[in-house]
């Protein structure tokens, strides 16, 4: 893939689950682990590994708190994550436009 075509493309969004997680965090200020699990219909391990991947890429931030004495893990998108996601959307749009033109 040429540099020009890769502009805006991020490997973190290779996986559809990571893309879904970021989509959710783009429109929700924060989202907790159990709600992610219920909405995305995935296993704990699978979800945790993808969240970890996004966290390592500094696209999301983890916040731990307690709700009714139970631990509550919530996730928030960072500025970097938002910008990367927007760039990825632009990349997809560009692909669509190029496909239509060709």
């Amino acid at each position, binding site marked *: 893939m040429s540099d020009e075509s890769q502009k805006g493309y991020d490997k973190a969004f290779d996986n559809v689950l990571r893309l879904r997680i970021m989509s959710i965090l783009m429109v929700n200020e924060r989202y907790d682990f159990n709600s992610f699990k219920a*909405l995305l219909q995935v296993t704990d391990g699978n979800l945790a590994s993808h969240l970890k991947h996004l966290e390592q890429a500094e696209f999301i931030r983890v916040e731990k708190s307690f709700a009714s004495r139970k631990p509550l893990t919530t996730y928030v998108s960072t500025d970097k994550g938002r910008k990367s996601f927007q760039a990825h959307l632009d990349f997809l749009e560009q692909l669509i436009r190029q496909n239509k033109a060709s």
Partner: protein
Amino acid sequence: MRFSIIYFEFQSTFKMKTPEEELAEIKSMMERSTRFLSLSGFSGMLAGMYALAASVTAWYWIYFPSSSWGTGSDTLSFRELVNRLLLLGLATLIAAVGTAYFFKQKERVGCNPPLLVPSQQALLTVLISSRGLRRLLLLCLAARKCFRTYSCSHAPFLRHRLGTICSIYPREDQKFRLYSTPLGLDCCILSRFWTALLVTRFWPIPCNLWNPDVLPI
């Protein structure tokens, strides 16, 4: 086409089909995670049917009490009519909510999607919380007192004051603040709308009906 083929070669295990489908997927996920309440269309249709049935019944009670659709007896007294209408409204509400709940539970069996997403939970928590109830009680008491003592010319002033009281509480609540975007605006609008509706439409009716001094007829 060349770019998209190269792009999708880069994708790993979970493969998307086309960029269009990927964008559609993103949009759908954004909608599903922020949707206020996802009820089945059938429950909405049934709720509409209950409402129609109830309105037909109410219409016959009011205008043709002696017909076969109504009571089959003479004209209803005012108090009897009000009681019946209130009960009918309550029964319709319970039936509609019950049906929606039943279908939601049925839908949840198997795939188990969340009944409420976090934004909905936050909104309901604020509305049902003791602070929310306290505000509501305050509004009701204020409205009741004002409608008895002030004349109609003071109503806009009262409405403004109550609207202000109600719009403050979402900002005070910590739990609400957690989900302030994009729900903050919704909840603020909802609370204003709710207050306006409560004060201007519904509350004067029971106030006037249950207080014999100010009965409308």
